[in-house]
């Protein structure tokens, strides 16, 4: 029992460290603040945390306070629950039989959470942001589900440790690149990140980010980075062989690979235009979804052959 609590605390600590590191990388790579020095840019999580801790928590006219505060805090909770099953090397806080389903369930919960965060503030811009998230989720969710299915089919198991073990000798990314890319796209989607930050768009004053201030905003912003970090960790376990690698210990490889994926995800921010959900829906359903289905078919055939 004590060990379980201990490993859960470690997982949470690792996730939050990755979230903070993601923010540092974001500050360093941010193409809009080249005029200030490197140290100033890299310190972004410190400045922003101090700023938001010092800031007053503000309200709006007649908000649905419970849903609004709940919706702003919950993305971080979801990310923590995801982190619980992400292995570092051979160890994870938990390794349930249905690990892949656990991850999928949590990301679907974000549909409600982000919508509620937008709706609860009783503000037009936030409300539109909430609805935009639903539209966007409609585009990425099915490709994500099939992308998650591919490694599970190949491993013949929904348990994350089995999926990692099955990649011995050949990482899944090599023979399921489409699923890997669809997965990364969906991670950006549920983290409201980069080209998929449509629900938090500048054109609607930040959308779901329009109204929270102070600690609320801090928790929401941390939740975004944490979701991104959890997605990167999961991509490592499902597609990049987890802790497999020469010389270094397993956990070290997990951390390194996760860091690389996280940096790649962070780097696309601000460098691509936002994809509007109504415009990319056709792309998602006519190109990405069939592509992930074909990927799944290929994976299934190979899995049957191999067994």
């Amino acid at each position, binding site marked *: 029992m004590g060990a379980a609590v201990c490993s859960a605390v470690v997982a949470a600590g690792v996730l939050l460290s990755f979230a903070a590191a993601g923010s540092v990388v974001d500050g360093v790579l941010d*193409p*809009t*603040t080249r*005029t*200030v020095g490197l140290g*100033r840019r890299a*310190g*972004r999580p*410190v*400045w*922003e945390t*101090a*700023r938001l*801790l*010092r*800031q*007053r*928590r*503000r*309200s*709006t*006219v*007649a908000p649905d306070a419970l849903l609004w505060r709940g919706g702003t805090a919950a993305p971080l909770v979801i990310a923590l629950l995801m982190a619980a099953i992400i292995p570092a090397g051979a160890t994870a806080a938990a390794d349930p039989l249905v690990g892949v389903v656990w991850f999928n369930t949590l990301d679907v919960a974000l549909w409600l959470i982000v919508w509620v965060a937008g709706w609860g503030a009783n503000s*037009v*811009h936030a409300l*539109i942001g909430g*609805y*935009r998230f639903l539209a966007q989720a409609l585009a990425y969710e099915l490709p994500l589900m099939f992308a998650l299915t591919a490694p599970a089919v190949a491993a013949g198991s929904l348990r994350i440790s089995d999926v990692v073990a099955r990649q011995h000798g050949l990482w899944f990314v090599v023979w399921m690149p489409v699923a890997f890319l669809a997965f990364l796209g969906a991670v950006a989607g549920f983290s409201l990140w980069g*080209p998929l*930050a*449509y629900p938090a*768009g*500048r*054109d*609607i*004053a*930040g959308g779901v*980010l*329009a*109204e*929270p*201030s*102070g600690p609320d*905003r801090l928790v929401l912003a941390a939740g975004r980075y944490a979701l991104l970090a959890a997605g990167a960790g999961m991509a490592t376990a499902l597609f990049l062989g987890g802790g497999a690698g020469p010389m270094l210990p397993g956990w070290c490889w997990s951390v390194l690979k996760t860091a690389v994926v996280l940096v790649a995800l962070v780097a696309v921010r*601000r*460098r*691509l*235009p*936002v*994809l*509007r959900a*109504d*415009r*990319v829906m056709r*792309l998602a359903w006519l190109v990405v979804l069939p592509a992930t289905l074909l990927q799944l078919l290929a994976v299934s055939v190979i899995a049957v052959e191999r067994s």
Partner: protein
Amino acid sequence: MVMSARLARWATRRPHAILAVAPAATAARLAVERELAALGGVVAVSAADADVLIVVGEPGDDLSAAIENVWRQLPGPRARAQILSADQARQALAVAVLHLGDEQQVREAAQRRDEWRPTDPAMGNDKGGHGDGGMQMPAGLMMADRGPDRDGLKLDVLQVPWGPVLADWPAGLVVDLTLQGDLVQRAEARVMPPAGSSSVPFWDADAGAQRRHRHAAAHLDSLGRLLAVAGWPGMAERVRRLRDGVLADGSTRELREELSRTGRRVRRARTLRWATDGLGVLTDDLVRQAGVSGPAARSVANGGDVTARWQCWLAEAERLLQPDAAVDEEGPRGRRAGDRPASAALLEAAQHLMAGVDVAAARLVLASFDPDPDELLAVTSAQVDD
């Protein structure tokens, strides 16, 4: 005490500033954008996100009232500054940030309650006549009216003003939207005038080559704003740096090369095309009806959509920076027809094309016309409302 002083120092390293820009203060606005970036600050997108309110120029009564409304919504600790001319920007910003770090600020913020004005039209409660008197909602709000939408359903109708304090938005412009969901049913634009008298619009000032460079910078300013609205802040920043370069140095070789590199990147961006293709199509009829001239009218030949308009800005900026380019007779937004400036026609066309599309598309349509409020000052509000 030491701890809170350190927290304050850290907290002011990356101040978020919301800009409230009055018309006829473009030079000051450009200086504020530049100095804020040099300070390590960022432009806030909403009042909740802001620590500093920067009033640029001299707002008139209406605009001042709107700005006070925004000021009340800043969570605090908060500071404000008014910047009337470009050379004040650096010092005024530094003072505001210093003030932000004051310990008094935290105490003041803790005691403050959010105040709301129940008569504020922003809350959508000032339209009666639907027989739902007595249906008082909490906080004195009324239920939204309902009306038929394009699919034959009855949906809530919201009256929402856009602007005048909004990121990447023309100075002092207000667009009163009638929204159903995120669909714009009606858009009516007006400009809140500044306190002082108007002068020659910034983008059309000077003569000869300088005036030509101003025009090129005007197109780059418009393009930067459009890219920001399209959610591409990295490229928006690059275009704005080009704009500042052109205003400072005119047409140098490095700037021309950088512009052609930037132009290639923007033209190649397929995802930008997805967002702007086929949107807000300006037809010959509408050109005549609204009296549109300038780049917007010239882009009709290339399809007349948002894409055609931003491509036209890019092409004209490239042309105007050629050393031997001719100086245009007309302003960057087009010809003045009698006492009706080119931007009045742009605004009319924009508000016509904003109706019937969703909020994201409507903002792109408006940004693709980018009417210049500095030009609009000479007209009465009745003409603009037309």
